[in-house]
């Protein structure tokens, strides 16, 4: 065999990259897969209720690989869904509303395949998140407002009644920033509107208009009792004279209401 020595070196070197950390009842497996942020991917293996679980430990959504994770960005979301489907990844919200990505199996023989898929998936998501699909200022404006609004909603609405960044349909096409479950048959939809300039701000209004329309037509449409747009009055794109026409159309067309961020305490009475 040609290059036998080098080939064997490669196999040994790759093999040596695997390592682990014991974490209570779980094992952190540090894999040889890396990202363009120069981080090695870890997956977390647990055994619960007769099933092996391989998760990302919530590290993707927490940004621990120096990555961003913003499904509000349309391009990033499309790519993310491609990978979710390609690797059959499941997701669930953890206690602090952070998403955990995972795969599970009942057969130990499948565990290496799950680790292989999860590591590939996480590496792809982290590296993709480094690409700037939208202007930085716009991305940061959206990200900042989403974080502030999420946090505010979590302080005024009991945890069990609110879902953040949730899909209303099985095809995962209609995604609202927040859904408040007042009871099993009363839903309040909340979408955030912001933008780093009036063009992006109006785009955000248009998108909300469209999402509220789709929500009405969805299978849960009949349970929707209120639709609220939370308007980022601190954004540099918030120029009342240039967005008024769009806002008025949104309110009239979808029968929704608006709350300005500067008067966010009004949300208290509405949900």
């Amino acid at each position: 065999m040609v290059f036998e020595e080098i080939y064997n070196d490669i196999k040994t070197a790759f093999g040596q990259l695997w390592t682990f950390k014991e974490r209570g009842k779980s094992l952190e497996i540090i894999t040889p897969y890396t990202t363009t942020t120069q981080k090695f991917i870890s997956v977390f293996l647990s055994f619960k209720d007769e099933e092996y679980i391989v998760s990302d430990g919530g590290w993707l959504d927490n940004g621990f690989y120096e990555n961003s994770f913003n499904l509000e960005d349309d391009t990033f979301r499309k790519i993310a869904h491609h990978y979710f489907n390609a690797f059959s990844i499941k997701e669930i919200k953890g206690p602090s509303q952070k998403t955990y990505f995972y795969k599970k199996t009942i057969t130990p023989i499948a565990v290496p395949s799950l680790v292989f898929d999860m590591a590939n998936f996480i590496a792809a998501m982290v590296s993709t998140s480094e690409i700037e699909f939208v202007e930085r200022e716009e991305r940061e404006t959206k990200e900042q407002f989403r974080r502030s609004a999420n946090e505010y909603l979590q302080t005024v609405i009991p945890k069990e009644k609110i879902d953040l960044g949730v899909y209303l349909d099985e095809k995962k096409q209609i995604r609202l920033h927040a859904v408040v479950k007042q009871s099993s048959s009363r839903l309040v939809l909340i979408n955030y509107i912001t933008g780093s300039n009036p063009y992006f701000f109006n785009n955000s209004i248009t998108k909300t208009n469209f999402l509220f329309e789709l929500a009405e037509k969805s299978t849960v449409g009949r349970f929707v009792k209120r639709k609220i747009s939370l308007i980022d009055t601190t954004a540099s794109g918030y120029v009342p004279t240039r967005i008024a026409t769009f806002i008025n159309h949104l309110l009239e067309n979808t029968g929704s209401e608006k709350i300005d961020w500067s008067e966010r305490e009004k949300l208290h009475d509405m949900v």
Partner: protein
Amino acid sequence: MSIVPAIRSKYGFYRKLLREHKYVLRDTVDVVKMPGNSTFLEGKTAVSHSDLDAEITLTVRVKCNDHDFFRFELRCLELSEEPFFEFHSDGCTHRNADESIPLAQQRVTTPHFSQYNQQGANVTYPVPETTEDTDITRSLVYFCQEAKLNLRDDEFPMIRVLPNALPLHVTQKDPNSTVLFL
């Protein structure tokens, strides 16, 4: 981001910033909940350089649901938005992507320190096993020694995590433990 062009182009300034003595201006850093950040608690204090007139900040970040998971970051905005020296107690493993180092030795698990080389590339190095410690105050002492940082009287600053709350040391070593994987 593993390569920081700003550090490459101002490498002399960076070296001086890192290698020369710096003084923490407050003896206690209170780490508290920050609006808009549900992952980390945060505390900041100003740092002054013995020779340079640059604004330097020491940031202490502690994971809300795991107080053994913390980071210390020294930042100088005049240089770059990225911290110029860091310590991570836990979290992901870094790769020093350098073809002159055997592949297996490019891996650096946490706890580790991070600095930059002349090319502006992030170079991470492990904490010596003898100083590996989950205690945040003792870890800060190692960090300060490594970063040439102390108070005016050669003492080291103290950290108080959530000083106005009950003194509960929250830990979550196993991130899968609190999640119901349906």
